[in-house]
């Protein structure tokens, strides 16, 4: 019998109008070890269909750093998904 797939816990923060689109500020979710940010973004798009069309322009951070989509998630990573920034 195959060993059960190891799961890791990540939290996903939504900011700006992504909160309205998802109806959610923080989404805690378990994903298989080895999951990339790109895959997590896809999962978010499936779970929250209204952010799906935003995937192209979406900015993605882990902790306080921007990360590329090929970034491999670690347990307890705090991911943030948000639209283009508009400070000033």
């Amino acid at each position, binding site marked *: 019998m195959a060993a059960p797939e190891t799961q890791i816990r990540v939290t996903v923060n939504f900011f700006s109008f992504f909160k309205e689109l998802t109806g959610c500020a923080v989404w805690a979710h378990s994903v298989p070890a080895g999951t990339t940010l790109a895959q997590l973004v896809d999962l978010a798009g499936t779970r929250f269909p209204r952010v799906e069309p935003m995937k192209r322009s979406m900015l993605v*951070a882990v902790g306080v750093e*921007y990360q590329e989509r090929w970034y491999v998630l670690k347990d307890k990573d705090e991911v943030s998904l948000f639209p283009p920034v*508009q400070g000033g």
Partner: protein
Amino acid sequence: MPIQRQLVLTTERIDEAALLGRRAFSPGMGAVVYFLGVVREMENDAPIRAIEYEAFHKMAEHQFNLLFDEMAKRWPVESVRLVHRLGIVPVNEPSLWVEVTAPHRAEAFAACQWLIDQMKQVVPIWKKPVPV
């Protein structure tokens, strides 16, 4: 030389007079450039009452500090101070105050403009118009 820096993200009004009073200025510096961004009465051609600013606070601070580091590598800036107001900012009140001091005018202007341009690319702050 490390750049002197002060960063404030606050829901309080930006008090320019108090900020001026706290300016440190060494005798080698010849130029100070300030920028003040003010909420306009129209946003996307519609009248508004205010703009509400939201920040991912701890990431915004980190990203500002990365920009200050990079600025210090590019220009001989002595100090940078930046205040960004958050929450509801009424029309005609400032949302952003930036001050850059440097030995000469050209570098002070260049650094200040670069910082604001970069901020608008990477610092996680968003705005939402508040209709009249």
